[in-house]
């Protein structure tokens, strides 16, 4: 019997922006088995949630993930509104969907960039992250924050998207479509990307059903599921769009699904802003005084797949139990199928292909001058500067060529 070499990836590794330990057991170049250790960042959010009021829980669950930071409040709002039994206003539905889809675009662009980086195609990384910036500018213009937007509350949203901001959104989407054409061309026609991703990390339809994988990971293997269509919420049943699927189940299929999904997101956003323009401003929240006793299940389609929130209310002002299932929880387990039998180099892109959830939103608290070591700006000055930039963005409009 041959001896196996253990190659660790993590807990802190340039490939993973979050701590997670993958142990690859290799025979020469070939991965024979994979084991993982998680929990380095376990924050006990489900337990914490039981000690917060419903309004505070939104801010808490928003911090589960820095990239898809709106998907958790989205699912939580759906769950709590199911307990209360309210139907939110149409304007709220459109605003929620706009935020959800802008997030999908920025998250998929971030992933396309990272995938390029893992393959050694750093030009793609630079492009994708550059074109992601105007989307973050839009977020800053609409919500005041690049990430963690604090837009949701029970029965509505906290801020309106005024009609004056709509032309800026429309302009960014128009530019985005051109940039998506460029990116899609660069990826779909590149022989090196084909060679590195086609037939690599294949997940069959049966693997997906066995592991309960969701999102682009499932759709790239021909499993046609999308909560936005299957269990409709917000404005998704009110606009025209289609669920993108592919059949091959390899890394290339996952790239393809994500790239094409961004076009659908742009189309959803454009239809939503058209609808918003025709409505009266300001009708964005219902007054909800108390959350009755009951059980609510809420789902939302995050960029990585279905987010599931289960809330038990005992009639008090905080949840009695709050169970959260993020999409990576089921998607990461599929590594057992996608990585074994591959070379180490292919295993890394297979690991990255499900887009395991990273956090990219740390902000500095102070700026220092490199040469003298003196503090130039402190935290409150930085916040002031950031607010100034937000107000300038709101005046001049987001987006640049």
């Amino acid at each position, binding site marked *: 019997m041959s001896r196996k070499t253990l190659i660790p990836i993590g807990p802190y590794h340039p490939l993973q922006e979050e701590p997670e330990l993958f142990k690859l057991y290799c025979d020469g170049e070939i991965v024979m088995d994979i084991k993982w250790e998680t*929990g380095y960042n376990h924050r006990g959010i489900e337990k914490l949630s039981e000690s917060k009021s419903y309004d505070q829980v939104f801010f808490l669950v928003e911090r589960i993930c820095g990239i898809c930071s709106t998907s958790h409040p989205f699912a939580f709002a759906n769950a709590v509104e*199911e307990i209360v039994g309210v139907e939110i206003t149409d304007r709220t539905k459109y605003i929620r969907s706009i935020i959800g889809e802008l997030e999908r675009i920025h998250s998929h662009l971030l992933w396309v960039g990272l995938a390029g980086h893992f393959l050694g195609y750093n030009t793609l990384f630079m492009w994708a992250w550059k074109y992601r910036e105007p989307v973050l500018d839009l977020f800053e213009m609409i919500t005041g924050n690049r990430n963690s937007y604090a837009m949701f509350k029970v029965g509505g949203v906290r801020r309106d998207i005024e009609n004056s901001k709509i032309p800026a959104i429309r302009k960014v989407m128009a530019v985005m479509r051109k940039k998506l054409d460029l990116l899609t061309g660069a990826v779909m026609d590149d022989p090196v990307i084909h060679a590195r991703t086609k037939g690599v990390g294949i997940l069959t339809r049966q693997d997906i059903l066995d592991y*309960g994988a969701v999102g682009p990971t499932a759709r790239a293997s021909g499993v046609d599921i999308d909560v936005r269509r*299957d*269990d409709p919420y917000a404005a998704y049943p009110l606009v025209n769009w289609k669920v993108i699927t592919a059949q091959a189940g390899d890394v290339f299929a996952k790239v393809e699904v994500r790239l094409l999904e961004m076009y659908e997101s742009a189309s959803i956003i454009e239809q939503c802003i058209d609808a918003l323009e025709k409505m009266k401003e300001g009708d964005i929240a219902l007054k909800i005084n108390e959350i009755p006793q009951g059980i609510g299940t809420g789902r939302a389609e995050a960029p990585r797949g279905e987010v*599931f929130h*289960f809330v038990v209310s005992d009639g008090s002002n905080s949840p009695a139990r709050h169970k959260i299932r993020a999409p990576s929880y089921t998607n990461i387990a599929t590594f057992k199928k996608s990585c074994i039998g591959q070379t180490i180099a292919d295993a890394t892109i297979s690991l990255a292909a499900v887009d395991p959830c990273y956090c990219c939103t740390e902000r500095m608290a102070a700026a220092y001058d490199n040469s003298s070591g003196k503090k130039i700006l402190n935290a409150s000055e930085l916040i002031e500067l950031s607010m100034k930039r937000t107000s300038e963005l709101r005046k001049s409009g987001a987006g640049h060529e």
Partner: protein
Amino acid sequence: MDTEAAINKLTEKFSDDTVKVELQNGRRAIVTIRPTAIPAISEYLYKSEGYRFIIASALHTRRGFEIYYHFSFDADGSILSLHVILDREKPHIESLSNMFSASNWIEREMHELFGIDFLHHPNQEKLLSEGNWADDVYPYRKEFK
């Protein structure tokens, strides 16, 4: 098939094991069943009816330990939750991980956080706090006066 018809079919087939049925707003249902019936009913949902296992949620209440097994029927967007109430002193239930891998991690997590035993689980090790937390101390358990 609408949710109500699906639930009727289930309760007819497993009439001896069904304790209570609650329907909410057309697309959500909670069916309380006897814990011993979980493998048979899950197998029926997963293999015959095409349900997808989403996740399981454990709770510690005055009644004992409760688990909701959430299944999604993606063709019509409904969620069926199988609800079981387990023993207060030595909570245990048959594992589903030999049927589908989707329940492997969550059963390990529930074992780690609530101390619920999953019989015949292929590998009931800690998922989150290996080496960082005392054995036999379960952080999500509550103390009732």
